[in-house]
Protein backbone atom coordinates (compact mmCIF):
# COMPACT_ATOMS: atom_id res chain seq x y z
CA UNK A 1 0.00 0.00 0.00
CA UNK A 2 1.39 3.37 -0.93
CA UNK A 3 2.03 6.27 1.40
CA UNK A 4 -0.89 8.15 -0.08
CA UNK A 5 -3.29 5.40 0.76
CA UNK A 6 -2.02 5.31 4.31
CA UNK A 7 -2.91 8.93 4.77
CA UNK A 8 -6.55 8.06 4.22
CA UNK A 9 -6.75 5.69 7.15
CA UNK A 10 -4.56 7.37 9.71
CA UNK A 11 -6.16 10.49 11.01
CA UNK A 12 -4.65 13.45 12.75
CA UNK A 13 -6.61 12.83 15.91
CA UNK A 14 -4.79 9.55 16.31
CA UNK A 15 -7.80 7.32 16.05
CA UNK A 16 -7.73 5.07 13.01
CA UNK A 17 -10.83 4.14 11.06
CA UNK A 18 -10.66 0.65 12.54
CA UNK A 19 -10.64 1.99 16.10
CA UNK A 20 -13.46 4.31 15.27
CA UNK A 21 -15.55 1.56 13.75
CA UNK A 22 -14.91 -0.75 16.70
CA UNK A 23 -16.21 1.93 19.07
CA UNK A 24 -19.22 2.68 16.92
CA UNK A 25 -20.02 -1.02 16.96
CA UNK A 26 -20.04 -0.72 20.75
CA UNK A 27 -22.68 1.99 20.35
CA UNK A 28 -20.44 4.75 21.60
CA UNK A 29 -21.93 8.06 20.60
CA UNK A 30 -18.61 9.88 20.87
CA UNK A 31 -17.23 7.61 18.14
CA UNK A 32 -20.21 8.34 15.92
CA UNK A 33 -19.64 12.00 16.60
CA UNK A 34 -16.03 11.70 15.49
CA UNK A 35 -17.06 9.87 12.33
CA UNK A 36 -19.67 12.52 11.54
CA UNK A 37 -17.19 15.26 12.30
CA UNK A 38 -14.60 13.67 10.06
CA UNK A 39 -16.69 12.61 7.10
CA UNK A 40 -19.93 14.59 7.05
CA UNK A 41 -18.52 17.29 4.76
CA UNK A 42 -17.61 14.76 2.09
CA UNK A 43 -20.86 12.83 2.44
CA UNK A 44 -22.86 16.04 2.39
CA UNK A 45 -20.98 17.37 -0.62
CA UNK A 46 -21.56 14.24 -2.65
CA UNK A 47 -25.22 13.99 -1.62
CA UNK A 48 -25.89 17.60 -2.57
CA UNK A 49 -24.22 17.19 -5.89
CA UNK A 50 -26.17 14.07 -6.82
CA UNK A 51 -29.54 14.94 -5.27
CA UNK A 52 -29.48 18.59 -6.25
CA UNK A 53 -31.40 19.81 -3.24
CA UNK A 54 -30.80 20.15 0.48
CA UNK A 55 -33.82 18.16 1.61
CA UNK A 56 -32.94 14.98 -0.24
CA UNK A 57 -29.26 15.42 0.53
CA UNK A 58 -29.98 15.64 4.24
CA UNK A 59 -32.17 12.57 4.03
CA UNK A 60 -29.46 10.56 2.30
CA UNK A 61 -26.80 11.76 4.71
CA UNK A 62 -28.95 10.69 7.62
CA UNK A 63 -29.37 7.30 6.00
CA UNK A 64 -25.65 6.89 5.39
CA UNK A 65 -24.63 7.55 8.99
CA UNK A 66 -27.57 5.56 10.24
CA UNK A 67 -26.27 2.60 8.25
CA UNK A 68 -22.87 3.11 9.83
CA UNK A 69 -24.39 3.24 13.30
CA UNK A 70 -26.48 0.13 12.72
CA UNK A 71 -24.01 -1.96 10.74
CA UNK A 72 -20.58 -0.90 11.94
CA UNK A 73 -19.74 -4.48 12.81
CA UNK A 74 -20.08 -5.43 9.13
CA UNK A 75 -17.58 -2.85 7.93
CA UNK A 76 -14.64 -4.52 6.19
CA UNK A 77 -11.56 -2.33 6.11
CA UNK A 78 -10.06 -4.50 3.39
CA UNK A 79 -12.66 -3.14 1.00
CA UNK A 80 -11.55 0.42 1.56
CA UNK A 81 -11.25 3.26 4.00
CA UNK A 82 -14.17 4.47 6.04
CA UNK A 83 -14.41 7.54 3.82
CA UNK A 84 -14.71 5.40 0.69
CA UNK A 85 -17.17 3.10 2.43
CA UNK A 86 -19.40 6.02 3.39
CA UNK A 87 -19.12 7.73 0.02
CA UNK A 88 -19.99 4.52 -1.79
CA UNK A 89 -23.14 4.19 0.30
CA UNK A 90 -23.88 7.88 -0.13
CA UNK A 91 -23.58 7.70 -3.89
CA UNK A 92 -25.79 4.65 -4.10
CA UNK A 93 -28.48 6.09 -1.79
CA UNK A 94 -28.37 9.48 -3.47
CA UNK A 95 -28.93 7.86 -6.85
CA UNK A 96 -31.95 6.03 -5.42
CA UNK A 97 -33.24 9.27 -3.96
CA UNK A 98 -32.84 11.08 -7.25
CA UNK A 99 -34.56 8.31 -9.17
CA UNK A 100 -37.37 8.31 -6.66
CA UNK A 101 -37.83 12.03 -7.10
CA UNK A 102 -37.89 11.63 -10.86
CA UNK A 103 -40.38 8.78 -10.61
CA UNK A 104 -42.66 10.89 -8.44
CA UNK A 105 -42.44 13.73 -10.88
CA UNK A 106 -43.21 11.45 -13.81
CA UNK A 107 -46.32 10.22 -12.04
CA UNK A 108 -47.56 13.58 -10.93
CA UNK A 109 -48.39 15.29 -14.20
CA UNK A 110 -48.49 18.97 -13.49
CA UNK A 111 -46.12 18.50 -10.59
CA UNK A 112 -43.34 18.13 -13.12
CA UNK A 113 -44.25 21.45 -14.68
CA UNK A 114 -44.24 23.10 -11.30
CA UNK A 115 -40.95 21.59 -10.20
CA UNK A 116 -39.29 23.01 -13.28
CA UNK A 117 -40.14 26.44 -11.93
CA UNK A 118 -38.97 25.72 -8.43
CA UNK A 119 -35.43 26.41 -7.44
CA UNK A 120 -33.86 23.65 -5.41
CA UNK A 121 -33.70 24.35 -1.71
CA UNK A 122 -30.01 24.88 -1.36
CA UNK A 123 -27.99 27.51 0.31
CA UNK A 124 -26.54 30.25 -1.91
CA UNK A 125 -23.19 28.56 -1.79
CA UNK A 126 -23.63 24.99 -3.01
CA UNK A 127 -20.92 22.34 -3.10
CA UNK A 128 -17.71 24.15 -2.54
CA UNK A 129 -15.28 21.49 -3.71
CA UNK A 130 -13.04 22.25 -0.80
CA UNK A 131 -9.79 20.48 -0.69
CA UNK A 132 -9.27 19.49 2.89
CA UNK A 133 -5.72 18.34 2.61
CA UNK A 134 -2.61 18.54 0.56
CA UNK A 135 -3.27 15.03 -0.65
CA UNK A 136 -6.67 16.06 -1.93
CA UNK A 137 -5.05 18.92 -3.83
CA UNK A 138 -2.58 16.48 -5.34
CA UNK A 139 -5.43 14.24 -6.41
CA UNK A 140 -7.32 17.12 -7.97
CA UNK A 141 -4.18 18.18 -9.82
CA UNK A 142 -3.67 14.65 -11.07
CA UNK A 143 -7.27 14.46 -12.25
CA UNK A 144 -6.65 17.68 -14.16
CA UNK A 145 -3.84 16.00 -16.04
CA UNK A 146 -6.03 13.21 -17.34
CA UNK A 147 -7.41 13.44 -20.88
CA UNK A 148 -10.59 15.58 -20.76
CA UNK A 149 -12.88 12.72 -21.70
CA UNK A 150 -11.51 10.59 -18.86
CA UNK A 151 -11.87 13.46 -16.40
CA UNK A 152 -15.47 13.97 -17.43
CA UNK A 153 -16.27 10.27 -17.32
CA UNK A 154 -14.85 9.96 -13.81
CA UNK A 155 -16.69 13.04 -12.57
CA UNK A 156 -19.98 11.84 -14.02
CA UNK A 157 -19.62 8.34 -12.65
CA UNK A 158 -18.28 9.11 -9.18
CA UNK A 159 -19.39 12.62 -8.30
CA UNK A 160 -22.57 13.07 -10.34
CA UNK A 161 -23.89 9.60 -9.62
CA UNK A 162 -24.33 8.38 -13.17
CA UNK A 163 -24.22 4.72 -14.06
CA UNK A 164 -21.88 3.63 -16.80
CA UNK A 165 -24.80 3.53 -19.25
CA UNK A 166 -25.77 7.05 -18.29
CA UNK A 167 -22.19 8.20 -18.69
CA UNK A 168 -22.10 6.78 -22.19
CA UNK A 169 -25.31 8.62 -23.07
CA UNK A 170 -24.12 11.85 -21.46
CA UNK A 171 -20.88 11.77 -23.39
CA UNK A 172 -22.50 10.35 -26.50
CA UNK A 173 -20.06 7.48 -26.72
CA UNK A 174 -20.59 3.71 -26.79
CA UNK A 175 -20.99 1.99 -23.42
CA UNK A 176 -17.80 -0.02 -23.85
CA UNK A 177 -15.85 3.15 -24.60
CA UNK A 178 -17.28 4.85 -21.52
CA UNK A 179 -16.24 1.92 -19.37
CA UNK A 180 -12.77 1.99 -20.86
CA UNK A 181 -12.38 5.71 -20.18
CA UNK A 182 -13.44 5.25 -16.58
CA UNK A 183 -11.18 2.29 -15.97
CA UNK A 184 -8.18 3.86 -17.72
CA UNK A 185 -8.79 7.13 -15.95
CA UNK A 186 -8.69 5.43 -12.57
CA UNK A 187 -5.57 3.46 -13.43
CA UNK A 188 -3.75 6.51 -14.78
CA UNK A 189 -4.74 8.52 -11.74
CA UNK A 190 -3.31 5.87 -9.48
CA UNK A 191 -0.09 5.67 -11.48
CA UNK A 192 0.38 9.43 -11.42
CA UNK A 193 -0.14 9.63 -7.68
CA UNK A 194 2.09 6.67 -6.97
CA UNK A 195 4.83 8.23 -9.08
CA UNK A 196 4.37 11.50 -7.22
CA UNK A 197 4.63 9.81 -3.84
CA UNK A 198 7.86 8.09 -4.91
CA UNK A 199 9.31 11.46 -5.94
CA UNK A 200 8.66 12.80 -2.43
CA UNK A 201 10.20 9.79 -0.73
Amino acid at each position, binding site marked *: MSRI*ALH*TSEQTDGMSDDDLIARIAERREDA*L*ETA*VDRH*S*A*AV*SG*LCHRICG*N*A*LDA*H*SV*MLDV*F*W*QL*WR*NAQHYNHRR*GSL*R*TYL*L*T*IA*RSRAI*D*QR*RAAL*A*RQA*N*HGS*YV*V*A*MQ*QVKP*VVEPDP*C*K*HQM*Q*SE*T*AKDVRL*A*IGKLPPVQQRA*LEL*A*FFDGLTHSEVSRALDIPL*GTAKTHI*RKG*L*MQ*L*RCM*LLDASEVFE
Partner: protein
Amino acid sequence: MKCTDASDQLVEYLLDDLSEIEQDALRQHVESCPHCASELEQLSHAVELLYLAAPERDVTTSGKQQLIQQIVRSKRLPVESLAVNVSSTSRMRITRWLVAFAAGVCFAVVLIPWFRSDRANLATTSENSDVPAWLANLEQNFQQLKFVSTSIGKALPHPQAVVMLDPLANQAQLLVINLPRIDPHQALVAWVFAADQRLLERHRLEINDDVGGVSIDADPNLIRAISVTLESVSPENSLALPDEASKEVILKLKLAS
Protein backbone atom coordinates in the same frame (compact mmCIF):
# COMPACT_ATOMS: atom_id res chain seq x y z
CA MET B 1 -17.15 -15.78 -16.17
CA LYS B 2 -14.34 -14.74 -18.50
CA CYS B 3 -11.65 -12.32 -17.40
CA THR B 4 -12.73 -9.82 -20.03
CA ASP B 5 -16.28 -9.84 -18.66
CA ALA B 6 -15.04 -9.56 -15.10
CA SER B 7 -12.68 -6.73 -15.92
CA ASP B 8 -15.56 -4.95 -17.58
CA GLN B 9 -17.55 -4.96 -14.33
CA LEU B 10 -14.89 -4.21 -11.73
CA VAL B 11 -15.51 -0.48 -11.47
CA GLU B 12 -19.27 -0.97 -11.29
CA TYR B 13 -18.66 -3.50 -8.54
CA LEU B 14 -16.70 -0.93 -6.56
CA LEU B 15 -19.43 1.62 -7.16
CA ASP B 16 -22.05 -0.84 -5.93
CA ASP B 17 -23.84 -0.54 -9.27
CA LEU B 18 -24.16 -4.28 -9.92
CA SER B 19 -27.08 -6.46 -8.99
CA GLU B 20 -26.67 -9.05 -6.24
CA ILE B 21 -26.39 -11.82 -8.82
CA GLU B 22 -23.75 -9.97 -10.80
CA GLN B 23 -21.83 -9.20 -7.61
CA ASP B 24 -21.83 -12.84 -6.56
CA ALA B 25 -20.64 -13.99 -9.97
CA LEU B 26 -17.87 -11.43 -10.01
CA ARG B 27 -16.80 -12.26 -6.47
CA GLN B 28 -16.55 -15.93 -7.35
CA HIS B 29 -14.42 -15.17 -10.38
CA VAL B 30 -12.11 -12.78 -8.54
CA GLU B 31 -11.53 -15.29 -5.75
CA SER B 32 -10.23 -17.78 -8.28
CA CYS B 33 -8.42 -15.40 -10.61
CA PRO B 34 -5.26 -13.68 -9.34
CA HIS B 35 -5.11 -11.42 -12.39
CA CYS B 36 -8.57 -9.99 -11.84
CA ALA B 37 -8.02 -9.85 -8.08
CA SER B 38 -4.94 -7.73 -8.69
CA GLU B 39 -6.82 -5.46 -11.06
CA LEU B 40 -9.63 -5.08 -8.54
CA GLU B 41 -7.14 -4.12 -5.84
CA GLN B 42 -5.56 -1.51 -8.06
CA LEU B 43 -8.91 -0.06 -9.04
CA SER B 44 -10.02 -0.08 -5.43
CA HIS B 45 -6.94 1.89 -4.51
CA ALA B 46 -7.61 4.33 -7.35
CA VAL B 47 -11.17 4.85 -6.12
CA GLU B 48 -9.80 5.58 -2.66
CA LEU B 49 -7.61 8.25 -4.16
CA LEU B 50 -10.33 9.68 -6.36
CA TYR B 51 -12.71 10.02 -3.43
CA LEU B 52 -10.13 12.17 -1.66
CA ALA B 53 -11.09 14.79 -4.21
CA ALA B 54 -14.82 14.36 -3.69
CA PRO B 55 -16.82 17.58 -3.41
CA GLU B 56 -17.18 18.68 0.18
CA ARG B 57 -19.76 20.80 1.87
CA ASP B 58 -19.37 21.92 5.43
CA VAL B 59 -21.99 20.84 7.92
CA THR B 60 -22.51 23.18 10.86
CA THR B 61 -21.83 22.00 14.37
CA SER B 62 -25.52 22.18 15.21
CA GLY B 63 -26.30 20.28 12.02
CA LYS B 64 -23.94 17.50 13.03
CA GLN B 65 -25.40 17.33 16.51
CA GLN B 66 -28.89 17.15 15.09
CA LEU B 67 -27.85 14.38 12.73
CA ILE B 68 -26.32 12.38 15.56
CA GLN B 69 -29.37 12.79 17.74
CA GLN B 70 -31.65 11.69 14.91
CA ILE B 71 -29.57 8.57 14.40
CA VAL B 72 -29.15 7.67 18.05
CA ARG B 73 -32.76 8.31 18.96
CA SER B 74 -34.14 6.48 15.97
CA LYS B 75 -33.31 3.15 17.59
CA ARG B 76 -35.68 3.90 20.41
CA LEU B 77 -38.83 4.55 18.47
CA PRO B 78 -41.63 3.79 20.94
CA VAL B 79 -43.24 0.98 19.03
CA GLU B 80 -45.29 -0.12 22.05
CA SER B 81 -46.91 3.26 22.23
CA LEU B 82 -48.52 2.67 18.87
CA ALA B 83 -51.12 0.38 20.36
CA VAL B 84 -52.41 3.17 22.53
CA ASN B 85 -53.46 5.18 19.56
CA VAL B 86 -55.11 2.62 17.37
CA SER B 87 -58.48 1.01 17.03
CA SER B 88 -59.11 -2.53 18.24
CA THR B 89 -59.09 -4.13 14.80
CA SER B 90 -55.93 -2.38 13.93
CA ARG B 91 -54.47 -3.36 17.26
CA MET B 92 -54.90 -7.02 16.41
CA ARG B 93 -53.18 -6.44 13.14
CA ILE B 94 -50.38 -4.57 14.81
CA THR B 95 -49.93 -7.26 17.45
CA ARG B 96 -49.41 -9.80 14.71
CA TRP B 97 -46.87 -7.59 13.11
CA LEU B 98 -45.08 -6.87 16.32
CA VAL B 99 -44.35 -10.57 16.58
CA ALA B 100 -42.85 -10.48 13.13
CA PHE B 101 -41.10 -7.32 14.16
CA ALA B 102 -38.77 -9.40 16.33
CA ALA B 103 -37.65 -11.41 13.33
CA GLY B 104 -36.30 -8.50 11.43
CA VAL B 105 -37.10 -4.97 12.23
CA CYS B 106 -36.58 -1.68 10.69
CA PHE B 107 -38.24 1.53 11.36
CA ALA B 108 -38.30 5.13 10.58
CA VAL B 109 -40.25 8.17 11.36
CA VAL B 110 -42.02 10.33 8.93
CA LEU B 111 -43.48 13.63 9.53
CA ILE B 112 -46.39 14.77 7.53
CA PRO B 113 -46.74 18.48 7.33
CA TRP B 114 -49.90 20.01 6.12
CA PHE B 115 -49.56 23.17 4.21
CA ARG B 116 -52.16 25.84 4.07
CA SER B 117 -52.67 28.39 1.37
CA ASP B 118 -55.30 30.80 0.31
CA ARG B 119 -58.27 28.91 -1.11
CA ALA B 120 -59.59 31.81 -3.17
CA ASN B 121 -56.21 32.42 -4.69
CA LEU B 122 -55.93 28.74 -5.51
CA ALA B 123 -59.26 28.67 -7.28
CA THR B 124 -58.49 31.76 -9.31
CA THR B 125 -55.13 30.52 -10.37
CA SER B 126 -56.44 27.11 -11.26
CA GLU B 127 -58.88 28.63 -13.70
CA ASN B 128 -56.38 30.90 -15.38
CA SER B 129 -53.15 28.99 -15.43
CA ASP B 130 -51.77 25.57 -16.11
CA VAL B 131 -49.88 25.74 -12.84
CA PRO B 132 -51.96 26.00 -9.70
CA ALA B 133 -50.93 28.39 -7.00
CA TRP B 134 -50.12 25.73 -4.49
CA LEU B 135 -47.66 24.17 -6.89
CA ALA B 136 -46.17 27.52 -7.73
CA ASN B 137 -45.62 28.04 -4.02
CA LEU B 138 -43.87 24.74 -3.67
CA GLU B 139 -40.52 26.25 -3.02
CA GLN B 140 -41.80 27.88 0.13
CA ASN B 141 -43.45 24.66 1.15
CA PHE B 142 -40.30 22.69 0.63
CA GLN B 143 -38.47 25.10 2.87
CA GLN B 144 -41.03 24.48 5.55
CA LEU B 145 -40.67 20.80 4.99
CA LYS B 146 -36.94 21.06 5.33
CA PHE B 147 -37.31 22.94 8.56
CA VAL B 148 -39.72 20.41 9.94
CA SER B 149 -37.76 17.42 8.77
CA THR B 150 -34.60 18.60 10.44
CA SER B 151 -36.42 18.95 13.73
CA ILE B 152 -37.31 15.28 13.94
CA GLY B 153 -34.41 14.62 16.25
CA LYS B 154 -35.67 17.03 18.87
CA ALA B 155 -39.35 16.38 18.84
CA LEU B 156 -41.55 13.71 17.41
CA PRO B 157 -44.57 15.53 16.13
CA HIS B 158 -47.53 13.61 14.85
CA PRO B 159 -48.39 12.04 12.53
CA GLN B 160 -45.82 9.32 12.72
CA ALA B 161 -45.25 6.39 10.51
CA VAL B 162 -43.65 3.10 11.31
CA VAL B 163 -42.53 0.39 8.98
CA MET B 164 -42.46 -3.17 10.12
CA LEU B 165 -40.80 -5.79 8.06
CA ASP B 166 -41.58 -9.45 8.07
CA PRO B 167 -38.94 -11.24 6.03
CA LEU B 168 -40.56 -14.60 6.73
CA ALA B 169 -43.83 -13.55 5.18
CA ASN B 170 -42.05 -11.53 2.54
CA GLN B 171 -44.06 -8.53 3.50
CA ALA B 172 -43.62 -5.06 4.81
CA GLN B 173 -46.25 -3.09 6.59
CA LEU B 174 -46.47 0.63 6.86
CA LEU B 175 -48.54 2.22 9.57
CA VAL B 176 -49.22 5.89 9.83
CA ILE B 177 -50.67 6.93 13.12
CA ASN B 178 -52.38 10.00 14.43
CA LEU B 179 -53.49 11.24 11.09
CA PRO B 180 -55.84 14.14 11.02
CA ARG B 181 -59.14 13.25 9.44
CA ILE B 182 -58.48 12.96 5.74
CA ASP B 183 -60.50 14.93 3.30
CA PRO B 184 -62.53 12.56 1.08
CA HIS B 185 -60.87 14.07 -1.93
CA GLN B 186 -57.47 13.21 -0.64
CA ALA B 187 -55.62 10.04 0.04
CA LEU B 188 -52.33 9.01 1.40
CA VAL B 189 -50.33 7.09 -1.08
CA ALA B 190 -47.28 5.09 -0.18
CA TRP B 191 -44.55 4.79 -2.71
CA VAL B 192 -42.27 1.86 -2.28
CA PHE B 193 -38.85 2.28 -3.68
CA ALA B 194 -36.99 -0.94 -3.90
CA ALA B 195 -33.27 -1.34 -4.07
CA ASP B 196 -33.87 -2.50 -7.59
CA GLN B 197 -35.66 0.46 -9.11
CA ARG B 198 -37.62 -1.78 -11.43
CA LEU B 199 -39.63 -2.79 -8.41
CA LEU B 200 -41.11 0.63 -7.85
CA GLU B 201 -44.65 0.18 -6.61
CA ARG B 202 -47.46 2.35 -5.41
CA HIS B 203 -49.97 1.53 -2.70
CA ARG B 204 -52.98 3.32 -1.39
CA LEU B 205 -53.06 3.61 2.36
CA GLU B 206 -56.13 2.51 4.22
CA ILE B 207 -57.29 5.38 6.30
CA ASN B 208 -59.45 5.61 9.36
CA ASP B 209 -59.63 8.36 11.91
CA ASP B 210 -56.38 7.78 13.59
CA VAL B 211 -54.62 4.94 11.87
CA GLY B 212 -53.59 4.30 8.34
CA GLY B 213 -51.88 1.16 7.30
CA VAL B 214 -50.85 -0.68 4.23
CA SER B 215 -49.38 -4.10 3.63
CA ILE B 216 -46.84 -4.33 0.92
CA ASP B 217 -46.02 -7.59 -0.76
CA ALA B 218 -42.40 -7.05 -1.47
CA ASP B 219 -39.19 -8.52 -0.25
CA PRO B 220 -38.30 -6.28 2.70
CA ASN B 221 -34.65 -6.83 2.00
CA LEU B 222 -35.10 -5.08 -1.31
CA ILE B 223 -36.96 -2.10 -0.01
CA ARG B 224 -34.81 0.97 0.21
CA ALA B 225 -37.31 3.64 1.02
CA ILE B 226 -40.94 4.41 1.31
CA SER B 227 -42.37 7.81 0.79
CA VAL B 228 -45.82 8.84 1.83
CA THR B 229 -47.60 11.34 -0.31
CA LEU B 230 -50.80 13.17 0.31
CA GLU B 231 -52.54 13.29 -3.00
CA SER B 232 -55.78 14.71 -4.15
CA VAL B 233 -58.21 12.18 -5.52
CA SER B 234 -61.00 12.94 -7.90
CA PRO B 235 -64.21 10.90 -7.90
CA GLU B 236 -62.70 8.94 -10.78
CA ASN B 237 -59.80 8.16 -8.52
CA SER B 238 -57.34 10.02 -10.65
CA LEU B 239 -55.04 12.86 -9.86
CA ALA B 240 -56.79 16.19 -9.77
CA LEU B 241 -56.29 19.57 -8.29
CA PRO B 242 -57.00 19.57 -4.60
CA ASP B 243 -60.06 21.45 -3.51
CA GLU B 244 -58.21 22.38 -0.41
CA ALA B 245 -54.67 23.42 0.05
CA SER B 246 -53.31 20.12 1.21
CA LYS B 247 -50.35 19.55 -0.90
CA GLU B 248 -48.36 16.99 -2.61
CA VAL B 249 -45.44 16.26 -0.43
CA ILE B 250 -44.10 14.37 2.20
CA LEU B 251 -41.22 12.62 3.61
CA LYS B 252 -39.66 9.33 3.29
CA LEU B 253 -39.13 6.39 5.48
CA LYS B 254 -35.68 5.07 5.35
CA LEU B 255 -35.25 1.40 5.90
CA ALA B 256 -32.19 -0.61 6.57
CA SER B 257 -31.42 -2.63 3.52
